[in-house]
């Protein structure tokens, strides 16, 4: 399932939804654009489109790098354009015969369904400052943080423990912090009912302040 919804604050400010996602067999992708990036949704959507192509030839962490190199070619090395278009997190869940590999650069969540059917929400926290892979392609003197570069982190989920793994942007936190919404969301994920999840988000739009994307 793929759910991609604009946050209430984005609506209020007249901003686009800056998340993007993709749900393919064995591959789930979520990209969360930086809210300070003027056009970060552009890069986020392009990454989600292009990444599966490079994954055919490279392992996930290298495929992220190659995808970014292609996206950067649009911007003639202008660091401001790179920041504004390509500042987004990358959250990827890739299925293998024995497990699921989650590769991530930036904050978000893993949604993991255990073999007994129970749903776990695992926070991916990269620290105080947002972490974007594009920082590797911006001159150090133009960065206040992550001047030493950023890496793609990974986590492995064995199929002996988990039957299904997906990823979500950190807009999910609003659902998880709400006592009424969290159990409903959990139930609908278990039941594999994306329409009910979308309606839930629509109904409680005021609670979902940030964009939310779930690929599960």
């Amino acid at each position: 399932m793929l759910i991609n919804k604009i946050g209430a604050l984005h609506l209020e400010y007249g901003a686009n939804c800056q998340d993007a996602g993709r749900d393919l067999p064995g591959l789930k992708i979520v990209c969360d654009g930086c809210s300070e990036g003027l056009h970060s949704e552009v890069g986020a959507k392009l990454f989600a489109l292009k990444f599966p192509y490079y994954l055919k030839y490279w392992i996930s962490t290298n495929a992220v790098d190659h995808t970014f190199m292609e996206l950067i070619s649009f911007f003639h090395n202008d660091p401001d354009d790179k920041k504004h278009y390509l500042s987004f997190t990358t959250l990827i869940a890739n299925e293998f015969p024995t497990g699921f590999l989650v590769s991530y650069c930036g904050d978000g969540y893993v949604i993991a369904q255990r073999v007994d059917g129970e749903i776990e929400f695992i926070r991916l926290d990269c620290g105080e400052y947002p972490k974007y892979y594009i920082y590797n392609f911006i001159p150090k003197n133009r960065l206040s943080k992550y001047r030493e570069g950023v890496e793609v982190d990974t986590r492995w989920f064995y199929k002996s423990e988990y039957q299904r793994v997906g990823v979500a942007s950190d807009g999910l936190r609003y659902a998880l912090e709400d006592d009424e919404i969290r159990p409903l969301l959990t139930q609908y994920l278990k039941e594999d009912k994306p329409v009910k999840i979308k309606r839930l988000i629509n109904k409680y739009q005021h609670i979902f302040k940030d964009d939310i994307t779930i690929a599960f």
Partner: protein
Amino acid sequence: MSENEMIIEGLDDIEVANTSIDDIESENVNLIFVGIDQSGSMHPYVTDMGSALSRFKQALEESKESDDILVARANFAADIDIGGYKKISEFDCNYTAWGATPMYDVIVDGSLKLDGYRTFLKDQGVRVKAVFAIFSDGDDTCSVRTFGDAKAAIERLNREEITTAFISFGGAATKTAKELGFRNILDVASSASELRKAFDCLSKSVIESSKSVVADEDDFFQI
């Protein structure tokens, strides 16, 4: 409770009368209200109307948007009979013609029922667009409601960005439709072929309207 009343546990009355939320497989729904004049003056076209309604139903059924469309048929003749919003597969294509033309009543009551179900769906998180369409060959003759009531109803629908559309069969109702405030008016001559074209136009307009993100304003019939 009379034997005609039906209670289904777990469903609100509004869901029993229309389509239950659990039977709607989409986040987005297009509500289509079609008010159909069944007054005696339509008698020469009974067979043609039945055929036009069948074509209308078939066109909607075959469209990719069919799952997102719910249609309420309202007949007005000696009295009014407003059905619930149902899947297009349940649309009744039968047609008879007798009685007068309580158009204002069907506009007022139809708009209230549309409001009620639309509000219910939105409260459940469904994104709703709506079209309120009337087909008539003449002016109102016997409503309890007034012209002012009907005009106020159309104004409210327009304000809420519901597409209002009127098919004037034979032209006699065109002036009234404009005065009532319908934003889209299709004026067709009174013949069997024009009748067929009118409902073909309506089905195409409904399908195109269902595809777009925002409601049509005054270009509903321009397909």
